[in-house]
């Protein structure tokens, strides 16, 4: 019987018998002659649909009995003989219908069965399609068979050189004991393969494989072992176990698909063999090749020794040798000369280095000076304001004097800093297109009023034949000319001050600043450009100058590859001529260029805020007006409440919130915080842990509020200690990510709008191309062609991402990034750099700090751009969360505080750097990174020179570009200052000798990659003790 035969039978059968019964009763009560019996054909026809070929006969048989009984028992109606004839004829025709029914049902069954088999075959074929590896193939076959035949358990064995290996199993409980291999003669499997015939079993021993399921374990009741045969060879056997078993359909199906399974298995095996054979031939051919090379080498050496023999016999050689000797002496003399030269050169280098160290020291010193100075200025200013009106006039005057002279001191220090910065090579130059006319106008705008104040005439003059634009660094140029002009005004009492521009020989442009002032004597003209020498000290002091202006000028002009000269006569005036090249080549950035201070300093800050963190001001400083709400944010955006009394911390958190497009409210006390819960309910609260207890009650008392709360502590912030005039606080990366995840979640919740991308690109065609590209992915774009336009957009609103071309007119992308990182007025979305320029290593380093990724334009760059943007838009938030969880797991795993420790990581792999950072920073360590051995050495050196925080421990990767870790460790150990600094090697190598090598080089310990936090942290702790 087939499985589907049962399906419709039961309801059908009962309906047939009910109708039969009904008709019979009707027939009983109807008098003979009323042909109720005629309706008996109905159940027969119904039985056609039953899929049981014998049912029509059964029904007819029943009918014949009913007809007879009906005839006997019905009340009389017509003539009995007529009734007999009627009923007999009816019976004959019912029999005919039954025969037709029987044939019909058989056909029906046949085609149904056929369909079932074909469907099975098709399903199987689609499963086996493609180049499947054997395991995959057998998995799929087994799955299909088990599903289609409704088996409970299944195993496939594959014939591997007359040994059957089980390849896949289904439903077999995990602790079942399966033989890995079965020899072709063993047991039932062996039997089936030998006979090439299936085996059926119904009496299954109790210890047979249990079916593994959640319902407990039981053994199947029926078992089929079926060999798949191709060319008289069994290449695969399947064993299937059933609870309910349909023998016929199961064997039919297995027979039906047997060929295709056998050949698929065969094909997969052949494929594998071909693959292995191919590899083997390649191997052998290489071996052969190497063997023949070896032979070649041997014959070569033979030839060589022959030749040598011959040579030995030649006596002429001796004379030759003498000649050589002489030339060697000559060479060695030459060499010593070169050596001497080298030593000289080295000496020279050392000297310049020393002077650079000096400048660096100066730079750092003046920074150190400025911090306390700043505070005394502020304090003096507050004092001089005399708010409490309790100072005497004299005291007031003192306070003002303190403020004034502190300001002068500050100016002096600033100048020294500038000068030493230039000398130390820390000053960047970014050449850009400068419009001469605009430049002169901007100077006039500043200096015309100053002249007017002093009763002087300001004259500007632009010669004919000047180009409209030229290429130099506009900021530095401005500094130079401003300095000269303000000097000119300073030293001139009557007459005029002039700025004129003309062309000069050799494609130079001359900026001439002239005055009719006191002039400079011939003796002093040579001194005037020396630092710290003032032409007229007294005068200078009167005018509040520092005397360093001109020295700075000179250095700046040198940076711009220009020249300056001076003509002057006492009492008649001076003329300074600055000659600058029309095109300033992009200078090679110095490798030791310090980016950090330049980037993180926010020049032009009020000076109140930064100091606040150090000199504890009263709370009044921290009112909300200090932190203006981001004006561009729409009012319906979510509000973040920041409860924090340290203004630095509060600000950096607020910035982050703003960058996500959220408004932030800052509360410095718990009362304020509670007040801010209404009327605008914040969507997220970020709170310093110390307020927790005060605020908690009121927070959670308002039970309708369910506001997510994120607690932070002072440990979650770090500050830059290198900035120019402000100390700034950052969230540590770990926390930064945590908050970003929170914000992102919030963002997801509150908006369903499309992604917005800002494109900054000056070429209109590229711009259109990019926007079309992005629009095709349902990304909204706004395109701008210059930096000012871009800033305008960023001041207006926020974006999910911006695409930045670096080569823009007037202002470059580099300075745009710098501006964005420094100024709060603009939102700062994640950046993808998209540029046609090749980048220097330093530029790349710089860009890496601000951008998500860098794409250099080329044929495939649009593709990559789209890919990166999509990835970025999809993954923000989610990755943050991911990284977070691992971080927290780490936390739990090993808890060691590294508070206050400063670690140097010398490592090339950026992923590792981040992994390390996320392990170390949450534990309080501060981290410095160098990307290869050379940079690592330099970083250590700098720390020694007092420039940076001193380093407590070095983590040294071994396989790096430029200089490898072993060399670097050896070099570190050569210096007496670093004899004892702990160095832990991070190594990708696993062999003991590699580890011994790192220890021999001077590492204190090593740890293998990938890092295991559980080992790494204790190791660190051990060496940090």
């Amino acid at each position: 019987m087939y499985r589907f035969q049962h399906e419709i039978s039961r309801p059908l059968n009962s309906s047939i018998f009910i109708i039969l019964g009904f008709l019979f009763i009707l027939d009983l009560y109807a008098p003979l002659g009323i042909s109720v019996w005629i309706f008996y054909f109905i159940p027969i026809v119904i039985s056609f649909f039953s899929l049981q070929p014998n049912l029509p006969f059964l029904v007819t048989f029943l009918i014949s009995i009913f007809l007879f009984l009906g005839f006997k028992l019905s009340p009389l109606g017509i003539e009995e003989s007529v009734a007999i004839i009627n009923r007999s004829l009816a019976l004959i025709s019912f029999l005919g219908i039954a025969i037709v029914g029987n044939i019909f049902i058989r056909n029906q069954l046949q085609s149904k069965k056929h369909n079932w088999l074909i469907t099975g075959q098709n399903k199987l074929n689609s499963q086996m399609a493609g180049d499947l590896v054997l395991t995959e193939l057998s998995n799929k076959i087994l799955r299909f068979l088990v599903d289609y035949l409704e088996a409970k358990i299944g195993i496939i064995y594959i014939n591997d050189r007359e040994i059957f290996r089980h390849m896949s199993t289904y439903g077999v409980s995990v602790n079942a004991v399966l033989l890995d291999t079965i020899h072709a003669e063993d047991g039932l499997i062996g039997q089936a393969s030998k006979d090439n015939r299936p085996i059926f079993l119904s009496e299954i021993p109790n210890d047979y494989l249990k079916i593994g399921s959640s319902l407990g374990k039981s053994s199947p009741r029926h078992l089929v072992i079926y060999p798949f045969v191709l060319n008289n060879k069994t290449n695969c056997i399947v064993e299937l176990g059933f609870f309910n078993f349909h023998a016929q359909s199961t064997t039919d199906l297995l027979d039906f698909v047997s060929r295709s399974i056998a050949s698929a298995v065969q094909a997969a095996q052949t494929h594998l063999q071909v693959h292995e054979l191919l590899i083997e031939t390649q191997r052998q051919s290489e071996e052969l090749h190497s063997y023949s090379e070896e032979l070649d080498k041997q014959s070569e050496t033979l030839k060589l020794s022959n030749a040598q023999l011959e040579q030995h016999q030649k006596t002429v050689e001796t004379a030759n040798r003498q000649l050589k000797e002489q030339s060697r002496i000559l060479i060695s003399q030459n060499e010593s000369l070169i050596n001497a030269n080298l030593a000289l050169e080295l000496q020279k280098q050392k000297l310049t280095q020393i002077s650079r160290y000096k400048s660096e020291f100066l730079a750092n010193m003046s920074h150190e000076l400025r911090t306390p100075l700043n505070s005394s200025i502020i304090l003096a200013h507050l004092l001089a304001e005399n708010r409490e009106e309790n100072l005497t006039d004299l005291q007031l005057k003192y306070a003002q004097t303190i403020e004034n002279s502190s300001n002068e001191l500050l100016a002096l220090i600033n100048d020294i800093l500038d000068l030493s910065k230039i000398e130390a090579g820390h000053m960047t130059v970014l050449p850009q297109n400068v419009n001469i006319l605009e430049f002169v106008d901007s100077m006039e705008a500043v200096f015309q009023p100053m002249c007017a104040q002093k009763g002087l005439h300001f004259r500007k003059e632009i010669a004919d034949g000047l180009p409209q634009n030229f290429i130099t660094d506009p900021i530095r140029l401005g500094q130079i000319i401003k300095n000269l002009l303000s000097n000119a005004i300073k030293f001139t009492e009557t007459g005029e001050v002039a700025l004129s521009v003309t062309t000069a020989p050799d494609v130079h442009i001359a900026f001439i600043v002239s005055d009719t002032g006191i002039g400079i004597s011939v003796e002093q003209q040579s001194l005037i450009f020396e630092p710290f020498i003032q032409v007229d000290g007294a005068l200078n002091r009167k005018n509040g100058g520092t005397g360093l202006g001109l020295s700075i000028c000179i250095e700046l002009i040198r940076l711009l590859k220009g020249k300056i000269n001076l003509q002057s006569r006492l009492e008649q005036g001076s003329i300074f001529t600055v000659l600058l090249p029309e095109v300033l080549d992009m200078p090679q950035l110095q490798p030791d260029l310090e980016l950090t201070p330049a980037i993180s300093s926010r020049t032009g800050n009020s000076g109140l805020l930064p100091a606040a963190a150090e000199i504890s001001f009263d709370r009044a400083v921290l009112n909300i007006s200090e932190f203006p709400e981001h004006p561009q944010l729409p009012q319906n955006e979510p509000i973040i409440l920041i409860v924090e009394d340290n203004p630095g911390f509060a600000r950096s958190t607020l910035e982050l919130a703003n960058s996500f497009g959220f408004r932030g409210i800052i509360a410095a006390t718990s009362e304020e915080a509670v007040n801010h819960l209404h009327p605008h309910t914040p969507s997220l609260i970020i709170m310093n842990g110390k307020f927790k207890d005060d605020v908690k009650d009121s927070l959670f008392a308002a039970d309708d509020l369910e506001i997510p709360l994120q607690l932070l502590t002072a440990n979650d912030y770090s500050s830059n200690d290198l900035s120019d005039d402000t100390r700034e606080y950052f969230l540590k990366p770990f926390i930064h990510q945590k908050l970003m995840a929170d914000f992102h979640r919030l963002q997801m919740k509150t908006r369903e709008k499309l992604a917005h991308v800002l494109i900054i690109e000056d070429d209109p065609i590229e711009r259109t191309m990019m926007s079309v590209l992005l629009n095709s992915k349902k990304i909204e774009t706004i395109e701008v062609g210059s930096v000012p336009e871009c800033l305008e957009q960023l001041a207006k609103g926020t974006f999910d991402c911006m695409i930045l071309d670096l080569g823009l007119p007037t202002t470059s992308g580099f300075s745009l990034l710098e501006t964005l990182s420094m100024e709060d007025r603009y939102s700062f979305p994640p950046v993808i750099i998209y540029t046609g320029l090749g980048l220097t290593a330093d530029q790349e380093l710089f860009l890496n700090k601000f951008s998500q990724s860098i794409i250099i334009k080329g044929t495939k760059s649009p593709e990559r751009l789209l890919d990166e943007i999509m990835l970025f838009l999809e993954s923000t938030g989610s990755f943050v969360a991911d990284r977070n969880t691992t971080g927290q797991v780490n936390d739990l795993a090993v808890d060691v505080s590294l508070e206050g420790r400063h670690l140097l990581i010398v490592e090339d792999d950026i992923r590792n750097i981040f992994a390390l950072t996320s392990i170390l920073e949450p534990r309080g360590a501060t981290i410095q990174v160098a990307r290869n051995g050379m940079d690592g050495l330099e970083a250590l050196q700098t720390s020694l020179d007092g420039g940076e925080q001193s380093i407590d421990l070095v983590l040294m990767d071994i396989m790096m570009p430029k200089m490898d870790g072993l060399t670097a460790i050896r070099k570190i150990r050569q210096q007496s200052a670093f004899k004892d600094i702990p160095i832990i090697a991070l190594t990708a190598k696993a062999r003991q000798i590699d580890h011994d090598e790192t220890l021999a080089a001077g590492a204190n310990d090593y740890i293998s990659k990938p890092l295991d936090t559980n080992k790494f942290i204790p190791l660190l702790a051990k060496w940090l003790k």
Partner: protein
Amino acid sequence: MSTREDIEVDLFLEGVYRHYHYDFRNYSRTFIKRRLNLIKTLLQCESFSMLQHQILHDPHLMTKILNYLTIQVGDMFRDPGYFLSLRHIISSYLSTYSSIKVWIAGCGTGEELYSLAILFREEGLESRAQFFATDINFEALKRAEAGIYAVDRLESFENNYRHTDPKHSFSSYYTIKNNYAVFDSALKENTVFYNHSLVSDSVFAEMHLISCRNVLIYFDNSLQERAIGLFSDALIRKGFLGLGAKESLYLSPHAGNFTEFQRKDRIYQKMALQELPLPRVRGHIKL
């Protein structure tokens, strides 16, 4: 059931591993047996056990045996089609990165490295590329670093080179000194050479391109799996993996991490998925 020979080979390899830390235990068995048979005859040993005795007591022999167990066959621009495809990948895909890291795993005597370096130079990306050339055979590494090849090999080099859509004349890359071609040392300026084993060591940096040709053929399935796993971990999202002419990711469980970029040249590209962008750093880490 293991034959006596199998046991002897096992013991030999175990001995070499324990004593010299070279792990050939999971190399292709047929290959290892063939090579050991060769060594056996050369050293006139009667059995592998005798060979084992010799090698454990004579460290100098290890170098020799290492040279037998690692085949040093190489050619510049071997299978030119592969290098032609790489040229295309370099010029249009890798050129969009501002710095490009390339790992030549199992570099042997360096022919593959110089071929790649020449391609990068010709596509104008030399200065952006950083090459890592690794192998376990230190003698081969030394030769790779030297970049000196016998003159009679130049013909084959140049023949192959001609099929890679060349941009220069091949002779501009070397100078001839005493029957040897010395390759321009600037070609290896951005290369570091490291002893690194695909069997035991782990990933050391993030790569844009990995070329590992004719190394996997010597490994059995489990080692191939390990090596390909390393490559998969080391590659950036959308990074490229190139294999030898007879190698493929067929059978590899890591195949799902890659798409076939150029089937005939055995070049694969790592799929997007897992890798995620790095968080932006604001000042606190000095990179």
